[in-house]
């Protein structure tokens, strides 16, 4: 009984707090133009509301850096720990496996089925969500008055921007700046290594049966391009489309990269139907990349990008 009452009281207080924050934020900001100013000003740590725009285009406002963060995706958990906001992490998902400390966090379910009650029980002042699957949960959380930042970057730079934003929301600007610097350095390094080498046609396999790839509007497509590849999957449309094996063989990529990890096991790629005659197979340019460094929009994309360039342009990285 008493715990229920306390819970209710807490919910009411939370609601009041959030409403106050909302009113304050509204009166303080006035217009959305302020947001860009806030992003560029390092003084955002000073008292006063923190406002950023998330990857779904919605403004997220906190009146003080978040103290109880719930992450709904492994990438978000990685970001929080990498920027030094691990202390404030209240809960994560059952998929969170990096860094090691993340495994010990309380779990709110997994990426596909986050449990709203469980999330609310941590009284989070910030929820780091993902797009797509979680839309229904997000609506419920917003009704509860919880501030939700949707992490859904479409490019490598978008991921960097999101990490910067999360830095602001959590008061971990310095840590975030270091991560941003490292990710930017990785990109510059890779771009310098690639130089003006001709783009190598590259196929990136997300899933093998049926064959699926990374299409346009994904940070994976962007990273292939940065690493000097021409993404064959881009012709199949946006997101993560299915892809015809016949067209794959016709386009005959110079480099074949299969994503591997909990979601997908590529098996023996060379032995697949019709693969024996692919240029990538004949020239030994078939690679397997761990999905957590290429499919999670977080700090380890820097590592993913560095690995991609050694696969797409081995000559570039060795001559360095």
């Amino acid at each position, binding site marked *: 009984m008493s715990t229920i009452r306390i819970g209710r009281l807490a919910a009411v207080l939370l609601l009041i707090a959030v409403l106050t924050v909302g009113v304050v934020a509204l009166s303080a900001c006035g217009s959305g133009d302020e947001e860009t100013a806030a992003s560029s000003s390092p003084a955002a740590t000073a008292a006063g509301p923190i406002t950023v725009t998330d990857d779904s285009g919605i403004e997220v406002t906190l009146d003080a850096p978040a103290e109880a963060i719930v992450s709904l995706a492994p990438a978000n958990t990685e970001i929080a720990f990498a920027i030094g906001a691990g202390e404030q992490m209240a809960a994560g998902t*059952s*998929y969170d496996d990096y860094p090691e400390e993340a495994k010990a966090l309380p779990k709110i379910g*997994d*990426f*596909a*089925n986050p449990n709203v009650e469980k999330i609310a029980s941590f009284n989070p002042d910030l929820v780091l969500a993902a797009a797509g699957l979680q839309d229904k949960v997000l609506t419920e959380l917003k009704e509860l008055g919880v501030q939700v930042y949707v992490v859904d970057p479409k490019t490598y730079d978008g991921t960097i921007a999101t990490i910067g934003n999360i830095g602001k929301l959590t008061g971990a600007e310095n840590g975030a700046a270091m991560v941003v610097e490292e990710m930017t350095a990785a990109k510059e390094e890779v771009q310098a290594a690639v130089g003006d080498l001709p783009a190598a046609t590259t196929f990136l396999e997300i*899933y*093998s*049966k*049926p*064959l699926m790839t990374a299409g346009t509007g994904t940070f994976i497509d962007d990273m292939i391009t940065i690493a000097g590849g021409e993404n064959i999957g881009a*012709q*199949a*449309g946006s997101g993560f*489309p*299915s*892809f*015809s*094996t*016949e*067209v794959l*063989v*016709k386009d*005959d990529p110079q480099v074949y990269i299969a994503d591997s990890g*909990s*979601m*997908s*096991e590529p*098996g*023996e790629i060379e032995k*697949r*139907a*019709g693969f*024996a*005659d*692919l240029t990538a197979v*004949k020239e030994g340019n078939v690679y397997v990349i761990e999905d957590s460094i290429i499919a999670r929009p977080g700090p380890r994309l820097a590592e993913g990008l560095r690995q991609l360039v050694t696969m797409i342009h081995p000559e570039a990285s060795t001559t360095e």
Partner: protein
Amino acid sequence: MTRPARTGTVPGILLAAGVLAVCLALGLALGPVSLSLSQLWHLVTAGPVQGDLQSAIFWEIRMPRVLVSALVGAALAVAGVILQDLFLNPLTDPYVTGVSSGAALGATIGIVLHFANLSVTTVLAIAGGLGTLVIVWMAARRRGRIDVFVLLLAGVTISYLASALVTVLMIKANEDMTAIIYWLMGSFSGRGWPDVRVALVTIPFMIAPLFFTREMDILLQGEKRALELGVEVERTKRLLLVTAGVLTALAVSVSGIIAFVGLVVPHVVRLLMGPGHRGMLPVSLLAGASLMVLADLLSRTVIAPNEIPVGVVTTFIGAPLFVYLLRRGRRA
């Protein structure tokens, strides 16, 4: 009520064989990568050539895919005919016996246990399907005879149970959910010669029932009448059930669960040919193969380089055709 004019047995079979030949030719000639007639002629006459990409597309990707879809379509149609007759129930399809759900459970276990070798998953699917058949069989056996209605109910029940177990596994092994969902949806994407080899095993099981068409005709009049007419009812039922179960398990294990072919093809053929099995069984076999080859052709070409799940296509072709024929049959 006068029955609509029906095609004779031999012309019907020849026509269906002709249709299948055309579908196979189209399936081999057309694809997301277009090959001209002279290129096709060259590919066919030269045979598989190492190191030639067009040859790889034709011989290693398209050919096995067309063959697997033809065999799976034929197997599902034959299983559908047998089971609709045995259960005397028009809503029966090869999946009501629980065999497909059992196969799905087997495949799910294979996926969850992360066998790098995908053929282990195929073997587990076959084992799951046949295992389910045995359980359903034991449930329906009373004093040496099989009660088909108990069998139907047991099949549906086991089917629900297996589906529930698949769901539990999906939730427990959440990271494999995508793989399981794609498996369940059914597809011929990426099927190669090893899959053809599995699918070829269906052939003897498709031929066997062709020798029992007279018994199947008589069974349609009920088991009592069949006994009076001297049919060894239990032996025939056993043979037909095992045949249908094996066909379903093999088909599902290579392609996943593809809807509608096993339900609709027997009905359409029955409407066109009449219920006599000497004609409708072989025609169903050929028509099932044709429908599946055609459906897979559309699934890989319509929005190329993307693919549409083949079960969606079979339903889009099958449903309007079926409703049209039902209405026409009613009016005649």
